[in-house]
């Protein structure tokens, strides 16, 4: 296949009908190739730029705060003469440091995903992967009488890094159980379907749901939580989004408070 740029000039007779024409054709395949490259390059740049904006946001919101706290606590200890207050301030330093280290480790982990462009995709069986992940949740599923249903009959295979698929399933299932409704037993449905070359995975629950009107722009941000839960860290969905996007896919959700949430993950170019 090749690209041609053609200009046709008709010659008209007295009745204004064309009786002959001149066609000028030029092979523009190289130019088209360059254009395609440019489009790819520009969307990669856009992605990189968004990553940089996100990173600056994280530095400003998530790293500056704890560093200030440590410095202010140390100042306070130096200035105060009250031994009891000193001890109290001292006891507050350690949690800030461990918080800072946690955020730092999370950042490193997410940057590793972004930079690991060489990660190997393999053909994965969705049902088998889901079953394997569910084994780890067996105690929780029994404890909370959770019902898990899955149906991969429409599309059962994807080409994706195993580590990422496991992380996506683990995080979404864990969230569905963690943010279950106190009024009903949790029910989780995992399904997949084909969409042209892509595969769409959906994970639905009947849990607490998230108020999207309030939180839509924060759902996948690092250190954002939407329910008062002692184990809520605001890292799972951030990591899932990072992994999905690193492979060119996308993630979004529907949610209604007190009804439940459905997460959609689109795996790109799955022509298996």
């Amino acid at each position: 296949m090749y690209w041609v740029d053609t200009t046709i000039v008709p010659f008209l007779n007295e009745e204004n009908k064309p009786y002959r024409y001149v066609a000028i054709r030029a092979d523009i395949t190289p130019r088209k190739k360059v254009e395609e490259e440019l489009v790819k390059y520009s969307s990669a740049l856009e992605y990189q730029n968004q990553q940089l904006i996100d990173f600056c946001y994280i530095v400003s919101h998530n790293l500056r705060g704890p560093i200030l706290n440590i410095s202010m606590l140390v100042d306070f200890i130096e200035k105060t003469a009250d031994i009891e207050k000193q001890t109290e301030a001292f006891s507050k330093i350690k949690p800030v440091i461990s918080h800072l280290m946690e955020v730092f480790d999370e950042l490193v982990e997410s940057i590793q995903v972004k930079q690991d462009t060489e990660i190997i995709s393999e053909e994965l069986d969705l049902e088998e992967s889901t079953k394997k992940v569910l084994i780890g949740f067996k105690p929780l599923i029994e404890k909370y009488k959770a019902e898990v249903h899955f149906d991969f009959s429409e599309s059962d295979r994807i080409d994706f890094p195993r580590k990422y698929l496991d992380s996506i399933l683990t995080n979404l299932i864990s969230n569905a159980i963690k943010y279950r409704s106190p009024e009903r037993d949790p029910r989780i449905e995992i399904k997949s379907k084909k969409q042209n070359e892509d595969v769409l995975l959906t994970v639905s629950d009947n849990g607490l749901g998230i108020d999207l009107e309030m939180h839509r722009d924060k759902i996948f941000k690092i250190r954002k939580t939407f329910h008062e839960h002692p184990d809520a860290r605001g890292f799972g969905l951030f990591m899932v989004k990072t992994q999905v996007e690193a492979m060119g896919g996308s993630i979004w959700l529907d949610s209604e408070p007190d009804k439940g949430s459905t997460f959609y993950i689109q795996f790109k170019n799955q022509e298996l």
Partner: protein
Amino acid sequence: MKRVHNLAIVDDDDAFVFLTKEMVAETNMVDNISVFKNGKVALDFIEMNRGNEEELPEIILLDLSMPVMDGWQFLEKYSQLDPALAKKISIYICTSSISPDDVNRAKAQSNVSNFMVKPVTPENLISMIRQLN
């Protein structure tokens, strides 16, 4: 000089709350300090005490990044409540964010008295209380 009867800190950050409480106590200009760990708890309290001048704070130090209801959402809900309140409340945003987006967004809020980038210092606090009088 007039004393501040109630000052409220709306922040989920334990170290910041501790330090600010100490600093406020040190100024000797404030009678009561209350702490709310997110916007929702603070809003519920204000709503419940909307007609109660004794309980409402004169000053709120508001953090932006909090779980459940963050500072922006608090401001949005608060603006609907504002005319019905028994007391004029001065809201100061206190954030560790140095992002220009946040500063601009804060400036656009009519019910925000000022925007303070942490660390909050005793001087900040004293000038804030003085402005109130």
